[in-house]
């Protein structure tokens, strides 16, 4: 079987070759590259059946490489990465190999691949990408651009987000606020769980809420313990969502 190695470190690539040799597998390495750009070009022309793919490449991620392939080879991810990313590989890839790679695990992985080749039941890459976007790429920060510099605001420091015409204003816990060229609707999909929409133009960070007062007509007043002690009133249309998130 023809195989191809995409590894940003030469040493890691050598390690794989060594494992193939020692495990006496019927694999022929037809190529190897360290960058995603080179990998896409070569894989698309050489059409190997199996790719050992590192997640973090020098110029892009392994997922970006997958998106640019014209056919669907078998993939074994090699990585040292996060648990939740590993969950993704379990769902969609043939297998993943955690670095440092052990000979036993490597052999098992190849066996699993051979079994799978009979069934040919791999999920499409599209669903992989959707999954990654939903589960891995949650927003962790906001980039604030001023002149030629960018500062990053940690999402854990954001107490509230407010819609302002075509912009959104985000309020930090220390009382600073920033304008972002985004819509609240778009932003809402990227935010982690602890952000709750309570009003047509307000999203608040649940972690900053320290008091909730009942208002009339199914509305609530949320008091936040940021520097300004912000107090934001919810609207009725978000009642059910609020009740669920705040267990009211």
């Amino acid at each position: 079987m023809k195989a191809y190695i995409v590894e940003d470190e030469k040493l890691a690539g050598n390690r794989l070759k060594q494992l193939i040799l020692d495990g006496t597998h019927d694999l022929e390495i037809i190529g190897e590259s360290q960058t995603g750009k080179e990998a896409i070009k070569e894989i698309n022309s050489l059409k190997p059946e199996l790719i050992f793919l590192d997640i973090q490449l020098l110029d892009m991620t392994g997922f970006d490489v997958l998106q640019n392939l014209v056919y669907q080879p078998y993939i074994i991810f090699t990585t040292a990465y996060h648990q939740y990313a590993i969950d993704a590989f379990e769902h969609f890839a043939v297998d993943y190999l955690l670095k440092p790679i052990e000979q036993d695990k490597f052999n098992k992985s190849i066996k699993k691949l051979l079994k799978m080749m009979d069934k040919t039941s791999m999920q499409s890459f599209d669903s992989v990408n959707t999954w990654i976007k939903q589960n891995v790429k949650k927003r962790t920060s906001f980039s604030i651009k001023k002149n030629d510099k960018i500062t990053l605001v940690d999402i854990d420091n954001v107490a509230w987000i407010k819609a302002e015409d075509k912009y959104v204003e985000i309020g930090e816990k220390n009382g600073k606020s920033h304008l972002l060229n985004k819509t609240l609707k778009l932003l809402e999909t990227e935010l982690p769980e602890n952000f709750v929409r309570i009003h047509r133009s307000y999203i608040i960070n649940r972690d900053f809420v320290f008091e909730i007062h009942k208002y009339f007509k199914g509305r609530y007043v949320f008091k936040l313990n940021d520097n300004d002690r912000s107090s934001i009133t919810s609207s009725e249309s978000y009642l059910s969502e609020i009740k669920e998130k705040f267990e009211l």
Partner: protein
Amino acid sequence: MNKLVTYTILVLGTLGFLLISGLVNSGMKEIVYEKNGLQFEYLNKSKAIRPSQEVQFFTSQDNNELTFYMNEGYKNQNFTTYLSVYKTIDPEENVHTLSVKAMNKDLSFQSTLEDLSHTELVNLISSINDFRGAKLSAYTSESGWFGYVDDTVVIFVLFGLIFFICCLIFNSMVKILSKRYGTRLEWIFPGTIVFILAFYAIGFNFSNWIPFSLSLNSVISFCSIFLPFLLFRFVIRKSSNLDFADREVLKFFTIIIGTYVIGAVLSRIGFAIDSSNFDNVMMIEKHGPFPIIMGMAISLASGNLLANLVRRMIYHRGSEKLLKKAEGELGRSNVELQSLQSTINPHFLYNSLNSIASTAKVDGDKTERMALALSSFYKYITNKKNEGLTILKNEVEMLNNYLEIEKIRFEDNLTVEIDVSSNAINCKLPRLLLQPLVENAVKYGYGESGINVKITAERISDQLIIRIYDSGAEFGLDMQIGFGIKSVNQKLELLYPDQHTLEFKNSPAKHILIEINQNEV
């Protein structure tokens, strides 16, 4: 709390010095003559500095004449100046004329005061005051404490205040400007002060504010201020590692003692070269511009010190409450810091071990180097006894270990340059602040010519400025902070709330900029 005491002492000390600087220059007072409820007083301006000066006055037997003379003893020379007051009466027109004369050597003369009225005496005194070399004032016994306060006190306190305001404005400006344009601008403020001082000293000698006339005195004035200024610059540079209080005290005494020593020596040399310069023409008696220069130096030193204190207090928003809060947070932050530090990215370890496994069978040397670097690196990380802060030297050493591993992993693809200026090497910063940022630079630094990472550090006044460059694609607005940068951000927030900078820049080259105030914590 300890710091608060230090600052209070500094403030009181400064105010005291301001007052003393005036008093030194006002000298001592001796009442030499009393008449008609008026007291004649000789203000010996230089007495505090030169104790050899004597003032004598004589009255004639019938009490009609008043003769003053000052005897100033320089080592080998004797100058005697007689100030004489006399009254002439034109018998035909019955007009009283008052005359004052000053003469050198033994041309003494006499004058009668018998018939002088109160107004005439006051006029007489004011005309004597026009003479240089001595000053007479008269006051009635009711004039109170302020009667004793010479205008020089007021002048130098006033100058202290002016310098204080100037320092306040200029030092703040310099800080802002130097942040943007680099160290060169640090010279602007002290340079301006030196220029003004020299201008003042020179101008004062020639009373009519003639700016430049290259006399011996102007050279002395200029050098007495300029040389201590150079010394001052040198001290600032060398003292960049001291904390705020020590540094300010050092600056203060450098200005004063530097000016005193250099000014005295130069005045002495000037006197030896041309003693005539120091005599009759000089407003500032026989010492050249020395007392003025000294007074100015003390005013400048005090003004500068006060200004820096006030700036610092504004900076801290002045209140003890805030200080306490900060102390409380520091205690809390140490706990948080420890937890932050213990959780450094484990993937690096796994990747490195994978590389070691790869080289183990083929390249023993490389394996050894890598294993040793890795062990040094983790030894640094897991060092528990160290608290939140370290000095840049240690961080750079750690970075070298870290980059040694990365270089083995990425071979020719990775080039690293570290440029730390010598004044920054002992600056304080949170432990393990830079590693996640450098790791980030390596991770995202791939460009056309491989991964090029450059780290620079310098100190500009109170700021430690670190830049981490990489050759990768520019920072975009869609970037998200990962674990590493998040921890860096948290460390800075904990230890330097609102007093730090963490910026991602694309111009002039892609880099991460960190600024840490060295006065904090």
